[in-house]
């Protein structure tokens, strides 16, 4: 496994973590994601915008005014991308003789 197998968009840890949460959920709300990842509003918006541009997630807005919420859902392309990226990361880590890492799957 080489660095070529890694998805450049997901090489950013924030984007990888965000898409990883989406991969294990039916839907995720913006505030939950922001708190879980410890990001600012603007940073998370930027990362999610990049993932949406790549068609890795869809966005749904609910409520009005102060109760307005933004929900994210991973797409099939996003699920495939994170699965391949995780597989590449696992391959890289397991190439190392003494470098155990928590096995993570993207399903």
């Amino acid at each position, binding site marked *: 496994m080489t660095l070529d197998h890694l998805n450049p968009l997901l090489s950013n840890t924030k984007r990888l973590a965000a898409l*990883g949460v989406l991969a*294990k*959920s039916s839907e*995720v*709300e913006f505030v939950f994601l922001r708190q879980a990842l410890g990001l600012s509003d603007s940073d998370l918006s930027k990362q999610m915008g990049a993932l949406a541009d790549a068609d890795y997630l869809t966005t749904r807005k609910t409520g009005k005014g102060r109760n307005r919420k933004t929900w994210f859902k991973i797409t099939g392309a996003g699920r495939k991308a994170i699965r391949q990226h995780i597989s590449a990361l696992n391959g890289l*880590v397991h190439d190392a003789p003494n470098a155990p890492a928590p096995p993570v799957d993207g*399903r």
Partner: protein
Amino acid sequence: MESEPAASASSRNSAANQLKALHDAQLSIYTRYPTVSRWYPPIFGLLAAAMVVAFATPPWLTVVLWVVVMCVAGIGVHWYLDKRGVIPSGRGAPPAIRREMRLFYVGYCLSIAGVIACYLLVSWWAAALLAFVIFTALITVYEARYARAAEQVASAAGRVELPRNKP
């Protein structure tokens, strides 16, 4: 001779760090949740009792009551998930959490069986009372056990979860 360029130590470390960050973020689905108010379990106990009472009414009223109860339960679940901010898919739940979920479903099935038996062998009002008590207790115990499991999972991963406001 290697068939592929060997990954450098730094890229391996970077990959391991990425996997760790991903793993930690995914744990948050199960460890970050709003604790429920004390009224939440008795409300679900009441809904379970109402479903039993519905059987003791004329058929048309049974249907109406069931629809009403299902709607109220649906609104309650939707409200909770909206507050929680995440709808776990159930895939890849940490083992400690999965165990609690399994226990809950076993308890849920046994409770239904117990209420049905009581309805058939004793009376509808005894079954309704049992449904209220048993489902209130089931949800109370589940919430407490889930909280303990989530705390264990979070501390094992070295995460410190901030308390979240009650919905």
